[in-house]
């Protein structure tokens, strides 16, 4: 893959579109939740106002260098995840920096933000942040196992580690999607998906009522704004990976937005009907149900 300078501008454009899409989509999801509950709900542009407000706050308190770097690392995880994955298949502009082994890098970036957050939250010195981070790392580790197995399964299936080639193999018909060619791997990966989306039943990490929102307890103003940006960017980037690996990718922005929204709604729908797991319950759940399905996926290929 050759590198050209214009790609940087294209990547920035991708980032801009995805952040705006994420801001509006999360607000729409909350709005839908409110409407289902009989409320009017927040305005769809509420996320923008919150962002501006948080950047506009006047006093900022630092707890050290790592405290600064926590949100930066987290945002890097989100941006990196997005930039090394082809967002729109077949488009020169939104191909981004995808290369031969990008699947491995993407797996790494999913974890990167959590690790950065762990360091930052540890520096903040708040005991509840430390509790939240240790829960988060334990749960994410357990949840990533089925995903890793599923990724092995499909890289065996397609004999490649390049996401672009995996997407290319799924084009043509809806029945070429990994969802239909390798349903077991898809199911295993969806375990990991709901587990890392920070939604109920796997949101004990931030549990607002119990440990006041866990890792970000001490974060405020611009730090919090960075994390909010990441909170809208990271799920979309993660959904893009899933979309590319299992749901045939997207060839234009309309298809992109519909698919991302539908996949995102999977975790939302599971979230609204399930109560919250405790950490040891969720880890046990992933090891008991997610892991065997992942192993099965590899065996079947």
């Amino acid at each position: 893959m050759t590198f050209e300078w214009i790609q940087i501008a294209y990547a920035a454009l991708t980032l801009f579109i995805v952040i705006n899409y994420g801001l509006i989509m999360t607000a729409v999801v909350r709005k839908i939740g409110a409407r289902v509950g009989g409320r009017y709900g927040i305005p769809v542009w509420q996320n923008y106002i919150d962002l501006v407000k948080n950047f506009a706050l006047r006093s900022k308190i630092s707890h050290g260098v790592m405290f600064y770097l926590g949100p930066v690392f987290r945002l890097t995880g989100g941006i990196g995840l997005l930039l090394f994955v082809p967002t729109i298949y077949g488009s020169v502009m939104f191909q981004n920096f995808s290369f031969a082994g990008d699947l491995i890098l993407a797996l790494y970036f999913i974890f990167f933000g959590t690790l950065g957050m762990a360091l930052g939250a540890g520096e903040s010195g708040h005991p509840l942040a430390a509790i939240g981070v240790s829960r988060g790392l334990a749960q994410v580790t357990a949840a990533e196992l089925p995903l890793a197995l599923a990724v092995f399964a499909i890289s065996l299936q397609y004999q490649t580690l390049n996401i672009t080639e995996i997407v290319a193999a799924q084009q043509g018909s809806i029945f070429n999607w990994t969802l239909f060619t390798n349903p077991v791997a898809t199911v295993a990966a969806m375990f990991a998906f709901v587990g890392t989306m920070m939604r109920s039943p796997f949101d004990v990490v931030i549990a607002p009522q119990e440990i006041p929102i866990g890792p970000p307890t001490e974060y405020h103003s611009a730090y919090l704004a960075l994390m909010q940006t990441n909170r809208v960017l990271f799920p979309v980037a993660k959904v893009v990976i899933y979309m590319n690996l299992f749901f045939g990718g997207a060839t234009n922005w309309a298809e992109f937005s519909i698919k991302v929204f539908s996949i995102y709604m999977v975790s939302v729908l599971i979230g609204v009907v399930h109560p919250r797991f405790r950490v040891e319950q969720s880890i046990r759940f992933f090891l008991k149900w997610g892991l065997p399905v992942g192993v099965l996926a590899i065996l079947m290929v």
Partner: protein
Amino acid sequence: MKDVDKSFRKDTETEIPLREELQPRTVTAPDGQKIEIDPLQDYFCQEPPKVHKQSYLKIVEDFYNWARANSLWILGFGTGCGAIEMRPLMTPRFDAYRYGIQWRPTPRQANLLVISGYLSVKTLKRAIRAYEQMPSPKYVMGLGSCTINGGMYWDSYNTIKKLDEYLPVDLYIAGCMPRPEALLAGFMELKKKIRKGEGEGANKYAENFDWYKANQKSVIKDWDMPDYNW
């Protein structure tokens, strides 16, 4: 007041000793070195709060104020019976979310502290800590007659009677207790104040810092925290 009792005099002599873990002490390190520790000086930041200037351009400040007004994050900290009147605001009937009002679980992320009802001396200490940890600009709303003049706790030995002696209050909502509708009206009124640029309670607090601290320390006798909780 006409019914002042002259014969009873409160005890003003007795001092509360500092808590044991906060007293200055000398610690011997494993290598024999002696270390002087004064926890209140060493463990906490002693800096007083600063007055924050507004943006240079009025239009920028107006834009910021608009954003602040439309994204009020309330600290979920209920001090009295009024906390029960805040919960219905999340329900379909009142639904405060549609005005950009949200509840945040930590003071670091909140902009509005609602003192919801009577404030005992013990709770006042926590409320001050929570208020000082919030990022500026921050707003305080006093709920109910207890925060205005003591309300039905006007003769209580343990509740304060005038909130604006201790914290810079932007807005009072009268009633005992005010209904959720009154609260919503209060939020709208606060929004108007912020849009006009009058929500400068944090700067007022920083300017009159010594006066507020003297008032706070006159009722909180076991002051065991730094003067400003960063």
